[in-house]
């Protein structure tokens, strides 16, 4: 079979239309539609997180169904539950083990603010140890609220300056809650 010179040129029948875009737009489009959550399920919010993974609420509509229990394989930590001071170090270490780019979602009242546990044992908001991108209210939040929060995270990822951060180190993000 002979090779024609037209085989090496642009063939609109095979490749379709050319899309011109910005690198940021393409990278962010890829990233926000393949978020791999790390389910940091440490209390009852994790049950709602599991429900969101089931077929009824179907988190895979947003490309987030690939939950990974290893921080090396995930890029979005969903803190679902009450974080005690004893657990806070674990949360932070797992966050540190995740590869960049990474995001954190504080799911529910406890992870966001300590919730009803105004006590000596409970960290009053996970934003004291990890930088949180999205806070979800509720005790526990319904799966719809989680999905809404994850869609807001997608919006946030959409507007990141990803190319600039690829060229140099991604900046260390400050904690939302300024510790004394």
């Amino acid at each position, binding site marked *: 079979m002979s090779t024609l010179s037209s085989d090496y040129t642009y063939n609109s029948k095979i490749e379709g239309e050319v899309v011109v875009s910005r690198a940021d737009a393409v990278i962010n489009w890829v990233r926000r539609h393949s978020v791999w959550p790390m389910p940091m399920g440490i209390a009852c919010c994790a049950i709602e997180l599991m429900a969101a993974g089931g077929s009824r609420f179907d988190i895979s509509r947003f490309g987030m169904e690939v939950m990974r229990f290893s921080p090396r394989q995930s890029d979005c930590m969903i803190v679902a539950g009450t974080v005690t*001071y*004893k657990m*806070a*170090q674990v949360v*932070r*270490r797992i966050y*540190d083990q995740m590869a960049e780019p990474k995001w954190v979602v504080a799911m529910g*009242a406890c992870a*966001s*603010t*300590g919730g009803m*546990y*105004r*006590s*000596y*044992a*409970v960290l*009053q*908001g996970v934003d*004291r*140890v990890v930088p949180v991108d999205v806070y979800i209210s509720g005790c526990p939040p319904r799966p719809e609220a989680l999905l809404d929060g994850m869609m807001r995270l997608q919006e946030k990822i959409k507007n990141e300056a990803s190319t600039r951060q690829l060229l140099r180190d991604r900046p260390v993000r400050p*904690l*939302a*809650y*300024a*510790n*004394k």
Partner: protein
Amino acid sequence: MRERLNAILEAHPYLAARPSADCRAFNCPPEHLIGLLTCLRDEHGFDFLTDVTAIDHQEARPRFEVLYHLFSTERHDYLRLATPCADDQQPACPSVTALWPTADWHEREAYDMFGIRFAGHPDLRRILMWDGYPYFPLRKEFPLAGLETPFPSEDLTEATGASVLPAPMLGGPFHSAQGGPMSAREPRAGDQSWTETRPRPAAAEGAPPGAA
């Protein structure tokens, strides 16, 4: 059951009846504790140790009491035993892990929360709070909100600057008002000057939430 309990009382004259709203309860001096519990387990069928806990009386002397809840799986009887701890500063009590292995974690919890040292315990470490936590949280003088202490791990303190702080008992980022109509008493953010649609005032940027 009544005859059996009376027989126990007669056989162990050092026992004193203890006021109780449910099952029968006795006060037992600590020196007779192990012997009595062995007798109850082997001869009276109290084969299940339901719970070991403690009470801090704060003002009364002796200050600390250790409580044992026994259950007989054969006759479905409950029995409560209380024994005072001799020293109010360094309360101590004999361990019953040799009689019931389940006492291991119960005694560790009583040690963690009240600071009662169980003599003869094989592995008396904290079970709920982390090793090195300086307080015993269920003692009466300890505030519910907690006291400021360093974080359990140094690398975390270095990375975040965080420490264990007293929890806000009123106020805090989300709280309910103490008075007013019920619609106004729902938990809500203390600072409602900004939302996700209304931007945060520039002056408050960087300040901790609720500080404004």
